[in-house]
């Protein structure tokens, strides 16, 4: 602890703090212009000068960076301090007349007018360097700095050109105390973090309202710290010290008896069908985006609105986007018909819009599904049978103006129709996950032609795979709806439990064996075994197979030059007999 005197009052404060902090604790206000608690003191504005009195005399020190010392005597508003402070504020008033904090401080200090020459009455920048320090010390980008010196000093990027180092975080503008830097200045470089492109969000957020667990996370893509290695403001302010920027993804090894793969699907990307205008035309959205929009926690609070904020008067729902189409995926995604019906129902409930459903075939195969379809028919949703050829904003008539026009051949009446709507929902299909091939490799299983994981047998073993102990559940195996997924997951769980319950696993008895009597120890097999199941016993001069490691591929058997290695059930003799058998007439 340190004992000192501030404005006549003897106080005790902890060691290592500055005069400014000590004064703050005493509720003595010392004005500052270049100080920010999150940054190292810069001591440039010289407004926070206070008088430090010691035996030798007195001197002015800047309170923002001078540490308290035992026996120190400080006067924060002595004549000498105030004189210098006023003078410095008066100078700043001439240099940056438009800076509001300077104007306010001047008023406080009783300065009505500056006696110095005003260069630019609109100048706001007081050269406090907060932006520069924020960019360098907090953000770590160092995209801006001071240029020139003295009177010509200014904040700028190198050579005044757009800087590649700028990450568009706008921290400079955020820290600027006078508003000299505005976000508009950075337009085009500002990154807006988005969730399904429906609105901005921050680098720290809860993924969605329904998230489990319901905790915030740091989006590494958006967080400044992960771009530059600096800025840890969040952990500085978190009192619970709950934020750990160093936390790393961990690889946890678990020994398990069986594995259920439920790696899900990827939604079809409708921008691959340019004719539907997704990404190009406003108000053409995907099913998932509509789900987000209609959700109570959506940016619109569950209201179904167009991009201009108005309620749609007509909505078209296009079925089979990316499904049942030989250009994209030939299979039926199974779920789109039913969720499209749900959308139509929700639209009916929440808006007064006309609703059009464009379908190829209605596939309402489940329990109660057909009945739901009939309900929709009665609710007045218009069902048009035919594949939509195009969505465009090219109006041919007055009533089409400002609308999205859906062009479709109505196959029930044999006429090409143009239907103007305000909103188009694309019922996108289901595709295998982007990494399904890698997952398949890891688990040594196969993918079927369409890319979904291949079950061992479509009828007899629909949740098993070719790798024993690995089971499938949900859309990673094929498109399916929630009831089917739950059912399959139950089956997979049962299979896994059955295996676990047994506690052991029967290996197929197809391993290779080496006849000790015949093996000459040539070791050709040793290097060929991909599972290092074969070792050479130098003492005995023969190679030996570890049964537990052998998976029974038989590579060693076909390579054994002396015929000492044989595979159980696939002996040379047996295969020779098979070959002979083929030619018995």
């Amino acid at each position, binding site marked *: 602890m340190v004992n000192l005197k501030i404005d006549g009052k003897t106080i005790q404060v902890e060691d290592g703090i500055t005069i400014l902090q000590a004064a703050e604790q005493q509720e003595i206000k010392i004005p500052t212009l270049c100080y920010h608690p999150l940054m190292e003191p810069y001591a440039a504005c010289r407004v926070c000068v206070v008088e430090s009195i010691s035996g030798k005399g007195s001197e002015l020190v800047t309170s923002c960076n001078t540490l308290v010392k035992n026996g120190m005597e400080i006067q924060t508003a002595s004549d000498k301090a105030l004189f210098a402070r006023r003078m410095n504020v008066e100078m700043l008033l001439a240099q940056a007349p438009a800076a509001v904090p300077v104007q306010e401080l001047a008023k406080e200090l009783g300065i009505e007018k500056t006696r110095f020459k005003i260069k630019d009455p609109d100048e706001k920048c007081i050269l406090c360097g907060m932006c520069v320090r924020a960019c360098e010390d907090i953000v770590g980008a160092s995209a801006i700095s001071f240029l020139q010196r003295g009177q010509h000093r200014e904040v700028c990027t190198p050579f005044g050109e757009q800087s590649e180092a700028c990450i568009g975080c706008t921290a400079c503008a955020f820290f600027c105390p006078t508003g000299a830097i505005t976000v508009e200045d950075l337009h085009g470089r500002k990154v807006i973090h988005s969730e399904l492109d429906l609105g901005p969000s921050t680098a720290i957020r809860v993924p969605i309202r329904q998230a489990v667990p319901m905790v915030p996370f740091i989006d590494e893509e958006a967080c400044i710290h992960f771009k530059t290695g600096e800025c840890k403001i969040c952990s500085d302010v978190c009192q619970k010290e709950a934020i750990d920027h160093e936390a790393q993804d961990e690889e946890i090894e678990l020994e398990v008896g069986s594995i259920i793969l439920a790696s899900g699907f990827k939604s079809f990307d409708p921008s691959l069908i340019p004719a539907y205008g997704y990404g190009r035309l406003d108000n053409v959205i995907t099913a998932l985006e509509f789900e987000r929009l209609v959700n109570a926690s959506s940016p619109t609070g569950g209201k179904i609105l167009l991009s201009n904020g108005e309620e749609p008067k007509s909505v078209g729902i296009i079925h089979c986007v990316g499904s049942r189409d030989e250009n994209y995926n030939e299979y039926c995604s199974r779920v789109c018909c039913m969720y499209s019906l749900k959308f139509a129902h929700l639209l009916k409930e929440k808006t007064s819009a006309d609703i059009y459903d464009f379908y190829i075939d209605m596939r309402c195969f489940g329990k109660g599904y057909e009945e739901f379809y009939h309900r929709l028919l009665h609710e007045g949703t218009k069902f048009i049978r035919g594949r939509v050829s195009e969505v465009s904003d090219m109006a041919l008539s007055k009533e089409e103006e400002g609308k999205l026009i859906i062009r479709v051949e109505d196959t029930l009446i044999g006429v090409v129709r143009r239907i103007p709507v305000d909103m188009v929902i694309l019922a996108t299909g289901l595709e295998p996950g982007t990494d399904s091939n890698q997952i398949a490799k890891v688990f040594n299983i196969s993918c079927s032609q369409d890319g979904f994981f291949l079950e061992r047998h479509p009828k007899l073993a629909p949740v098993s795979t070719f790798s024993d102990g690995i089971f499938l559940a949900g859309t990673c195996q094929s498109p399916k709806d929630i009831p089917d997924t739950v059912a399959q997951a139950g089956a997979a769980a049962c299979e896994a439990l059955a295996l676990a319950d047994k506690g052991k696993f029967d290996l197929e008895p197809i391993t290779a064996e080496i006849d000790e009597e015949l093996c000459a120890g040539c*070791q050709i097999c040793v290097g060929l075994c991909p599972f290092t199941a074969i070792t050479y016993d130098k003492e005995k001069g023969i190679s030996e197979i570890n049964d537990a490691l052998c998976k029974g591929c038989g590579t060693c058997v076909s390579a054994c030059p002396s015929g000492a290695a044989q595979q159980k059930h696939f002996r040379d003799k047996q295969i020779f007999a098979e070959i002979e058998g083929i030619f018995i007439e």
Partner: protein
Amino acid sequence: MSTEKPKVAFYWCASCGGCEEAVIDLAEDILKVTAAVDIVFWPVAMDFKKTDVEAMEDGSIAVSFINGAVRNSEQEEMVNLLRRKSGLVVAFGSCSHLGGIPGLANFWNRKTIFNSSYHTSPSTDNPEGTIPQEKHIMEDGKELTLPRFYDTVYTLDQVIDVDYYLPGCAPPKHLIMTAITAILEGKLPSKGAVLSPNKSLCDDCGRNDSKPEKLAIKAVKRPWEVEMDNEKCFLAQGIICMGPATRSGCEERCILGNMPCRGCFGPTDQVYDQGAKFLGAFASLLDSDDEEEIEKIVNTIVDPAGTFYRFSLPSSILRRKRMETVK
């Protein structure tokens, strides 16, 4: 000469004569043999005629040692004769056992061989283009005959029933002595046995311990192309050594002479086809997973068939190069 002594015959077919030398090479031991047996037929060393054999009682010869492959009608006739007269027939040496070097002729046929030997070979001077005929009527009306030269070379057991096999080109002395002793003492293994250990040569090979943990072959070299390490496993040097696919018992004669095994002892009992088996082993050692690179390494193997089947072509599954059968 006591009539008590068992009678023994030696005969040669398509062979180089090395096997006969092997008998002579028994040196002093030959005396023990002659002391114990009565040699009744040995064209290379003693003057007996075919008629002498024909005159013998069937089965009166205790054992006939026949070397060389069978490639013409005379040899076929003689081995059938000896079979009839002998209690036991031993295929003596690689040629009668597997076909041997003469067996490589199975990559050709009579026509192509005659064409080469009597017409196209550089040393041939045969302006009239004469080729051997089986029959020729002389001016005096006398008929001269030659044996028929077959398209295919046979192993002995493809022509007659063989009781035992003495492998090797030529069979080593110790195997010959062991075999003769066993016959004399009546301690014979079951019929059809090869009288040599049923393990491959690596078992005996002094270089076996010099193998690296993982054999991998980037390019195949022929012995004359490289300076060979005289202690390191040949396969590890990229040189084809048939040892792993060849029966032991030769006392690694070639290896000790710093030459790789060529496979004269033939395969072990479990192997159906020495060449194919060795190919299966050898190809898996090629050090690449890339098609083009594999192709490149394969191209460094000159004459795989001749190499892998150097001694065993007639005894292999395919026996010979594919020919249209005459209907």
